[in-house]
């Protein structure tokens, strides 16, 4: 893992003010050498601590490291997986589920978010049901998802969908509500009708917020992956992780976890990159 990837990861958890985000993003691109070294040594220290804890099989009573693999064992397991023909199938299956769930959530979340942000009727109709559904965790959806969808692939995509939907929906609503009413008034005075206002003002105005929601939603989609792939019979990183536990391949558990973490981080970065390409006016000296 490169230090600059870490830098941008830090940018992901920064507070959502555009200024600090931009500053952090810039810092991630050219960080002073001293801080790069500091971040690299943080990873090193974490690995050393992990190695010491796992190798000594420390047992504190409330938590035990007896069955935790050491980083060296995990690295070996990762090396083996890398050379296994199954890796591609695992990755492909998980990516397909996450991406399809995410895309469905993107369309549904932006659509519902625009409706709720713009129309009082939609708010009254949709808000209460959505508020009830929102706190239901992905794992609670499993039985119903199996019952509702004919194929297990669809039910897995649905569970990643539930994870990604709410961050996207909430941020879209937030973005729509944050649009200056003067912009809408100006558009109307320039001859824009309802549809034109939605397309030319509301959607681009909410875009930065939608992108933030999409990046968070992409993360939560991966977050729900293990839950989703408990249903799976064969492939997927989440399935691999869960299977490793049942087969007592404890080294592989850690490999699966790290893979999910890395893929989640990577795909959130991709979403942000695409988002930056889609909003070229941001950072063009714009302070609004």
């Amino acid at each position, binding site marked *: 893992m490169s230090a600059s990837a870490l830098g941008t990861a830090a940018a992901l958890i920064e507070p959502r003010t555009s200024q600090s985000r931009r500053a952090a993003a810039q810092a991630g691109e050219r960080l002073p050498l001293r801080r790069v070294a500091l971040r690299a040594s943080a990873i090193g220290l974490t690995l050393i601590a992990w190695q010491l804890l796992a190798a000594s099989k420390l047992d504190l009573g409330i938590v035990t490291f007896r069955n935790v693999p050491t980083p060296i064992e995990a690295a070996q397991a990762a090396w083996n997986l890398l050379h296994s023909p199954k890796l591609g199938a695992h990755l492909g299956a998980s990516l397909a589920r996450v991406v399809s769930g995410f895309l469905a959530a993107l369309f549904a979340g932006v659509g519902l978010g625009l409706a*709720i*942000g713009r129309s009082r009727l939609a*708010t009254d109709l949709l*808000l209460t049901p959505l*508020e009830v559904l929102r706190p239901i965790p992905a794992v609670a959806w499993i039985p119903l998802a199996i019952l509702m969808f004919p194929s297990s692939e669809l039910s897995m995509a649905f569970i990643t969908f539930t994870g990604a939907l709410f961050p996207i929906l*909430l941020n879209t*609503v*937030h973005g729509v*509500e944050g649009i*200056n*009413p*003067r*912009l809408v*008034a*100006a*558009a*109307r*005075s*320039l*001859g*824009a*009708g309802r549809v*034109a206002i939605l397309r*030319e*003002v509301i959607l*681009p*105005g909410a*875009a930065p917020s939608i992108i933030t929601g999409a990046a968070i939603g992409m993360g939560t989609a991966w977050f729900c992956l293990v839950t989703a792939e408990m249903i799976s019979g064969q492939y997927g990183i989440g399935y691999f992780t869960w299977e490793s536990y049942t087969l007592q391949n404890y080294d592989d558990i850690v490999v699966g976890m790290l893979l999910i973490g890395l893929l989640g981080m990577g795909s959130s970065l991709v979403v942000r990159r695409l988002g930056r390409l889609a*909003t*070229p*006016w941001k950072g*063009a*000296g*714009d*302070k*609004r």
Partner: protein
Amino acid sequence: MIGTHAEGRIAVADAVIRLGQGAAAFDVVENINLTIPGRQFVCLLGPSGCGKSTLLGALAGHLSLSRGRVAVDEEEITGPDPERGIVFQQHTLFPWKSVLDNIAFGLKMKGVAKDRRLEEARTYLSLVGLDGFGDRYPGELSGGMQQRVEIARVLINQPRVLLMDEPFGALDAQTRLTMQELLLDVWTRLRTTVLFVTHDIDEALFLGDRVLVMSPRPGRILDDFPVSFDRPRQRNLVVNPTFAQMKRHCLDLLRPEANVHPLPRLTPLGLSAAKRSAFENH
């Protein structure tokens, strides 16, 4: 009417605008009667919060009257229309559109083909002296340049009436003077009716053919007088004795009464509606 062609004649009759709800409702302007012939440059002068922007909002079609009627060229105003362009004080350019696309917006709404509308937009860009800035985003321009774009964006629709809500109020003094001259220069070429809201007496006297002075809220028209200095107006007008006399007259009219607190600024969009958030705990 005989021989009325679209020339931007404004008529306001017995206009009352109430804002707020229930017990908190209040009259912002009361019994405004006003006729503005086409192509006149009228400045509406009044203290902060007197309802001059609210009246402008009603003319733009963003607010409706509680009583009375407003019409342009005998057509009752029912909503916003590109024939009645409005320029706000600041921040109403679309930040995600380039300067040229901002200016071309009105033509896009009319369904004009891309090549033609961009070509037209370039003409207006040049009219406001911003050649070469078409590809920038508004956020990259200074406040004064943004207001130039704002004016070009409204004028491309060739409005019969140009409504301006303290358009230079957020600019520094030097830029403001430049913008006043630019506006007069543009206006002599396009000759649309202008209703220009300001609380700056010098600005009103320098720009207008006619000045309307409004009272503190509820706003009424206290005085209505012509300003007939030669055009093009010269900066040294401020030392002209007639100018000084008019200014003193306006100052007398606008002198705040000792026990009246200054009122918060109103906007052409009415009360700033309390921020409604769908997800309260978000």
